[in-house]
Structure formats: structure tokens, C-alpha cells
């Protein structure tokens, strides 16, 4: 997360310039390499993520507003495809699926045989247009899911075309989280879009450079374009008003029992939306199921939320029955104990938990007021 932030250097002098039409060449090259390209796209007036086959599926012209508990996206006359806040869903679901088959068992000649989950031949992925906060979240998952075979398999094959943010929505706080708006070190290529929709592409790895070359994208970007691109990203950073209250977090770490958790938990529905949309929440539970058709059994790993009563179910009942105890668990894990466990913050500042919380609970102010 080091080379991010508002005052990073201009794009590399080797950066190339892309017209809007060149995006299709870039996407086709990735697809010709056998990759499934995932990118932002609009569905039911919401920017979400899905497989894209061409640049026509990007949310060009769409602008979004995000505030606590509220999201609105509207088509506009703008030429840009990447000047939006974080898409509604996070990219984690493509690396860490909501349901994963772990093992299955079958009966062969009367004996139980355990079959490891078939490592289905999958096409490698390319993330196209992932923003700095979400890219940093992959860095966080890399640590948390280091031993998860399915995650590792997809992650190792992943190619990343990141997009610098040229706008911030009201819920963004990547600057304060130290993750953006410039994409950090995990990108193979970084795109920065200018107001007219043209872009600057900056290869960060050998294979990123090779993709640009194969796509025939080699027009050197002008210094003027590089400067305007940098200015746009700086302006996006300057627009952010939210920030993590490091003092409040330190106080919560030192004396968690003294925090007025009740005041925030009073508004919590324990619905779990925050954890589901968070790009770093990785928890799962294990579900053993038997199949009716052939009597075989399957073990599934399924997304879980610390806001669910069953999440903390131990022998005899749940140890976190009150909404207060569940909010406290989420907050302290994200912002405090994650550091002890994984050596980083569990929050990358994407603001999704603020936007998509039905009652608009705001992690940046939850315990300051």
C-alpha cells in the first residue's frame, strides 16, 4: 500500500495513451489469452461487477452518488467509464466464492471414500478496472486466505488491470486508510482516465507490459496528459471528507469495554449486509449435507457473517446474542485485532459498509460521537 496516496508520482514515462476504442483491444487481448474478464457494469441502475466481453459493457456515462444507507446511479452525458465509486459488490466473490465445495464422500463397495473437491478446470481471471481500495483488499485477503486452496488457485492466475479513481463518492475514505486513490503494488496495468474518456495505461509488471504490447498499444502518453491524469486523481483524493478516527480506534483498542457500543448498536439490524459487501470480510462456515439421490455427502464452505446469531454458536448457544456484542466484534476485528492477526488493518476504506447499511451506520464515526 506504499505507492498510493494523494502525492504519488506521475505515471511512468513509459505510459501509453489509449483512445476509448482501444479498451476493446485490451479486453479482447485478455480474452484471447483465455481469461474471463471481470469488470464494472450496470445492472438495474446499479454499478455491479460481472464478466464483460467488451468495453461497451462498462458503465460509460454513469455517475453514482453514495451516502450512508443510500445509493443512486444515473446516466449522464459524461464520456468516462471509471469515474464512479466502488461497485455494489466487491471483487472478493470471484476469488472467494460464496459457496465452495470442499470435499464429497461416496460409498464404493461398502466403504466410504473421500473425494477432494474436483479442482474444476477454470479459466484464469482478469480484473478490469478494479479500484485502489479493492486492490488493497486483495492484498488483505492474500494474507487471510493464504491457506485456502481455491482462493490461491484463482489468485495465482489473476491478472489485474486497475483503474485510478478520478472521482470519490461521499463514503470513500481510501486516503485515510492509506490505500488509494492510486492503485497500489498488486496491479499489472494501471489505467487513468481523462475527462474525455481517453486513458493512460501504465504497465507495472512484465506481463502487464506484454499484454499492452500484444494489444498493439504503444502510443507514448504525452506529458500534458500525464499531468492532467495526475491532477484528476489528486482532486479525487482532495474531495474525500471521511477519515478513520485513529484516536477513537486507539481508545477502543486500549479499553474496549469503555466504548459506548450501545449507542451505535441501537441502530443495527444485525442484517449482515456490511460484512457481505465488505471486500475483506472472509469468514465462512462449514455445512455438511447429504444428498438424497445417491446417499453421498458433501462438505460446503459458505460465506458467514459475524452479525448472524449462529456465527458465535458454541455448545449450548451463541456467545454473542446482543446486537451490541456483534457490532463490537465487527468493529474491533476490522480496525483493531486484524492488526494483531494479519499485520494490517481489515479496512481499506471503500465505504461499502456505510453505503449499503440499510440504517446508514458509518464505521468512520461509529464510536467517535
Amino acid at each position, binding site marked *: 500500500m506504499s505507492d498510493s496516496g494523494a502525492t504519488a508520482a506521475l505515471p511512468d514515462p513509459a505510459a501509453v495513451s489509449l483512445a476509448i476504442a482501444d479498451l476493446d483491444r485490451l479486453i479482447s487481448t485478455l480474452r484471447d489469452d483465455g481469461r474471463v474478464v471481470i469488470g464494472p457494469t450496470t445492472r438495474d441502475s*446499479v454499478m455491479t461487477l460481472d464478466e464483460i466481453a467488451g468495453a461497451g459493457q462498462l458503465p460509460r456515462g454513469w455517475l453514482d452518488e453514495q451516502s450512508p444507507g443510500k*445509493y443512486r446511479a444515473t446516466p449522464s452525458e459524461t464520456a468516462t467509464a471509471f469515474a464512479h465509486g466502488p461497485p455494489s459488490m466487491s471483487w472478493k466473490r470471484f476469488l472467494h466464492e460464496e459457496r465452495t465445495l470442499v470435499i464429497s464422500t461416496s460409498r464404493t463397495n461398502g466403504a466410504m471414500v473421500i473425494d477432494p473437491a474436483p479442482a474444476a478446470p477454470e479459466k484464469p481471471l482478469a480484473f478490469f478496472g478494479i479500484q485502489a481500495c479493492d486492490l488493497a483488499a486483495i492484498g488483505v485477503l492474500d494474507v487471510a486466505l493464504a491457506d485456502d486452496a481455491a482462493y490461491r488457485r484463482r489468485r495465482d492466475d489473476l491478472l489485474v488491470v486497475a483503474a485510478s479513481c478520478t472521482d470519490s463518492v461521499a463514503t470513500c475514505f481510501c486516503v485515510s486508510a492509506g490505500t488509494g486513490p492510486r492503485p497500489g503494488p498488486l496491479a499489472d496495468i494501471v489505467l487513468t482516465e481523462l475527462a474525455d474518456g481517453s486513458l493512460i495505461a501504465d504497465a507495472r509488471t512484465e506481463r502487464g507490459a506484454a499484454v499492452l504490447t500484444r494489444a498493439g498499444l504503444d502510443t507514448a502518453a504525452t506529458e500534458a496528459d500525464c499531468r492532467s491524469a495526475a491532477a484528476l486523481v489528486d482532486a479525487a483524493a482532495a474531495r474525500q471528507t471521511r477519515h478513520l478516527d485513529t484516536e477513537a480506534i486507539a481508545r477502543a483498542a486500549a479499553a474496549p469495554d469503555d466504548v459506548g457500543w450501545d449507542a451505535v448498536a441501537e441502530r*443495527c439490524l444485525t442484517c449482515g*449486509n456490511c460484512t*457481505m*459487501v465488505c471486500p475483506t470480510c472472509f469468514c465462512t462456515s462449514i455445512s455438511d449435507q447429504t444428498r*438424497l*439421490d445417491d446417499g453421498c455427502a458433501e462438505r460446503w464452505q459458505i460465506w458467514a457473517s459475524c452479525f448472524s446469531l449462529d456465527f458465535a454458536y458454541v455448545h449450548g448457544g451463541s456467545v454473542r446474542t446482543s446486537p451490541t456484542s456483534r457490532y463490537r466484534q465487527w468493529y474491533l476485528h476490522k480496525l483493531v485485532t486484524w492488526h494483531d492477526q494479519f499485520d494490517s488493518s481489515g479496512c481499506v476504506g471503500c465505504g461499502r459498509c456505510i453505503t*449499503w447499511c*440499510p440504517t446508514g451506520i458509518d464505521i468512520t464515526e461509529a464510536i467517535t460521537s
Partner: protein
Amino acid sequence: MSREPRRPSVAIWKFASCDGCQLTLLDCEDELLRVAELIDIAYFLEGSSATSDGPFDLSIVEGSISTAEDIERIQTVREKSAAVVTIGACATAGGIQALRNFGDVEELMRIVYATPDFLSVLDTVTPITDHIDVDFELRGCPIDKRQLLEVIGSYLAGRRPQIATDSVCIECKMAGQPCVLVAEGTPCLGPVTHGGCGALCPRFGRGCYGCFGPMDSARPEVLAPLLTTMGMPEDEQYRVFHTFNAWSEPFRDQPRPVPVTLSERSTS
């Protein structure tokens, strides 16, 4: 030499209900033959002519308790069954007929029936658990077919059913559906409603109606002010919490804004 193991006997009972949940079993077209091979359907008036006297390994009960005879009959069912599973909003929460619990049953009978004297019903409609011990409650109006198969399969395998008790929102987000409440301002009961339907309504752009009743730690009192800010009047809020699962806590306790008696309503 192996002997064919005895197939577990299963009975399906109906109390005050619409039959829709039992129908879910018949809807399991692809799986039904397999289910019929694995179990001995010993009593199932809707699906077969079998009327065994029991005992049964598993009784699946649909419907709520509405009459004095129901009380006796459900006790017999319990005595004859090793395990009892209730299915659907009627059996688990009283169902839509439990709306009468909020009014005066005598008054209701006079309004609805030409000859109320022929009726003999209890003052309140209640879920099965109010009368007997129940081993598992499967929620929904109607229940979900996949969940029913999971419950039957779990009893056949002698394990606990894997049925989540948290919110519809969890299923909504697992399905990758953007939230209709946040993105469109559509009132949605998902945050307080028990999952199981796979977020069917939100996936079609509609708010959740709460068919599966309150989730394990539902907080309708936190959702209600939000519904107000979305422009839903208080009497409508009362109505959305008082549908198929009106009698289950904490939906039951959602305050009625302006008390309107039935006679006032019917004369207006």
C-alpha cells in the same frame, strides 16, 4: 448377505392451513421418486390413499391449531411420532388465520359467516409448538422445496438440518443482488426476515414481504423508523409486519398506530 433396511415411515398431517406447503412435497418432481423409495409414506391424504395408524418415524405437520379437536389430534400425532417437524408459516407461527388473535373472534364470526352458530373454534390460533414439543420448524409461506428436501434428508441421515436462521439480506448479497432498499428506496423486510427463499423478491427488484417470518434476531423496531423515512405510513407498517407471520415475536409486538375496531372498519 444384506437385508433391505426398513424404510422409515413418514406421515404428513394437515391442520388449519391452505395445503400449499404439503403441495411443495409433490412439487419435488425430480426428487419425489427417490424420496418415495427411501421413505415409506404411511399417511399423506393429499398425495396417497395411505392412512396407517402409526407409529411413525417422522411426522411432518402443516397448519395451525384453531379448534379444540386440533389440540387433541396434534397430541396424538406427537405420541405416535419419533420426530415431529412443522412446516410453513401456519404451523410455525399461526399463519394468516392468526390475524384473528388481534381482534374479537365472536365479532369476526358475525361479520364473516351467515350462521356463526355452526362454528366451534378457539379464541386464538396458535403454532404447533404452543401445544407439543417440536423437533424442527421449517419456515416459509410457502416453504422452500430445497429446504424441505434438506430437512427430510437430514432426518433420514440422522443429522441436524442445515437451515440458516439469519436474514434474507445474507441470501440477497450471496446472490449478488444490489440492495433494493438502499439503491431504489424500496421498502424491504429483508433485514428482519428469516432467509430460506433465496431472496426471491429482491432478485426480481421487489422488497421482501417477510413470508419466512422474523429471523433469529429480528429488530423490526429498528427497521420501522427507516420505513417511515421511506414514506411508508405507520398503519401500513403495521400491516406489513402483520401478514403470514403476524403472531410470531417480535412482529406480533409491532405497535398498532390507531386502534380501529373491526366494526368501525366494516362500516366505513
